[in-house]
């Protein structure tokens, strides 16, 4: 159940990325209805926005079910609270999405919507990790990586919605990559003699490397096609891949931050 919720949030981030990249956020000018009905005419940008809304509803139901489901199964109070926070996040996210439509997509709300999506992903990943036994105090570098990667995601959202230039995001990428590699390599080096590397550290290191390349690709493609009729498919997919990989990287950092040094986990 917790994995399903985490998967739903990630799918929703993908759908949201497609909406933004296809410039389709306002293809449906009303909310919560769609062109005045439940199912709008499915053409052009409407398909992306409507799919995003349907997935959001599904993810909200799954998150709500997770919050209820975990109450009777989870003895740890913080885990039960985390699930409620995830549910609160999805409600706030729905409200933000509706406000974006009503207020015609102000940048600040669009950035808040994208940032809250990252928080929601983080919460569901934390619930899933905690449920499957990942529960300890990771080192402070891993916690710093979580914070830095989240800030980097917010900067990315600000770039995507035209609130800032790309330079802060590029500078942030260097810093975030450095901290993420420090966190993952530090853990890996300390466990070298065990002959088995901690999976969260390997995942964070790998995803960070891929994320750097996806960022370079997304920027290069966009720069090369700046005067082309948008959206170009390559621009869309490289950018959406960068957004989704960013969420995955943040998720890996959260799991690493919840992984106690020495591999010990607190059982449920």
């Amino acid at each position: 159940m917790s994995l399903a919720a985490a998967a739903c949030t990630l799918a929703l981030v993908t759908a949201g990325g497609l909406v933004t990249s296809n410039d389709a956020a306002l293809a449906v000018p009303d909310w919560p209805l769609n062109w005045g009905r439940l199912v709008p005419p499915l053409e052009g940008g409407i398909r992306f926005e409507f799919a995003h809304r349907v997935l959001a509803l599904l993810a909200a139901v799954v998150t709500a079910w997770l919050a209820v489901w975990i109450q009777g199964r989870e003895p740890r109070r913080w885990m039960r609270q985390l699930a409620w926070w995830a549910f609160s996040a999805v409600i706030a996210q729905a409200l933000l999405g509706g406000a974006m439509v009503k207020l015609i997509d102000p940048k600040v709300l669009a950035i808040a919507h994208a940032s809250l999506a990252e928080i929601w992903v983080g919460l569901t990943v934390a619930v899933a990790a905690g449920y499957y036994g990942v529960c300890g105090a990771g080192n402070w570098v891993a916690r710093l990586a979580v914070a830095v990667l989240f800030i980097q995601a917010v900067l990315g959202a600000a770039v995507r919605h035209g609130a800032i230039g790309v330079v802060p995001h590029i500078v942030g990428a260097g810093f975030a990559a450095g901290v993420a590699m420090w966190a993952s390599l530090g853990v890996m080096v300390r466990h070298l003699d065990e002959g088995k590397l901690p999976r969260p550290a390997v995942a964070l290191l790998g995803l960070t490397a891929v994320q750097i390349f996806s960022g370079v690709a997304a920027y290069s493609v966009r720069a090369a096609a700046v005067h082309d009729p948008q959206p170009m498919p390559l621009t869309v997919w490289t950018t959406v891949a960068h957004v989704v990989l960013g969420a995955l990287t943040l998720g890996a950092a959260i799991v690493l931050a919840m992984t106690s040094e020495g591999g010990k986990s607190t059982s449920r």
Partner: protein
Amino acid sequence: MKKILIAAGVACALTLAGCGGGETPAPKADAGATPAAGGAATPDMDNGATITGKVIFDGTAPAAKTLDMSAVPACTAAHKTPAKSEELVVGAGKGVKNAFVWIKSGLPTDKTWAVPTAAVTITQEGCMYSPHVIGIMAGQNLDIKNGDPTNHNIHPMPKVNADFNQSQPPGAADIDHVFPREEVLVPVKCNIHPWMRAYIGVVSHPFYAVTGDDGSYSIKGLPPGTYTIEVVHEHWIDQPQDQTITVGAKDSKTQDFTLKG
């Protein structure tokens, strides 16, 4: 259980709050907007000055890019040959089409200019805006038509005027809108068909023009004076070009612009 009920209540309240749904109505002219005609001045075609000129592309003219409308068959079917982007159209003699030329400053500040009662029309045809660039006076009515057998949403993105986003299904009534404040240029897009773009120059006086196929323009009936004349084009949207020009009564002067590719 209490938490569940509270959360469900919040969800219901949010849903109900949004049920007013619907589209943003076209804003009406507000305080500070250009007043409608009535005692206001009009261009003096007999004694006023005329400025003509061309907007020239400097460089190798790029080939027009093909628009990918394949996602919407109704749009593709409207074109016998694949539609081309109008973002940069370089015509005969390297003239740049669809540049907006206007008197940016220099007009008497104590004068109010009559707003034409006739509306300016922009039509969605073949999933493109026609015309691609228009000029309109602040306070003048803009008439938006959907000539397509498909859905559109009209989404201007002004920075000074209020924005709006309205759906327009095929056969729907025209949408009337008034931009109350001067703003050059207001981008307009359709989020259903993201290649659709138009630009509107909203000016508080009647001295503006949009360049034709050969890049030429003409502004007539100007009172004598020294003016800043500006050209704005979507390809160089952040790099408008200004020139200063002085005209007397009945003068006819030429002012060309060069846009570097």
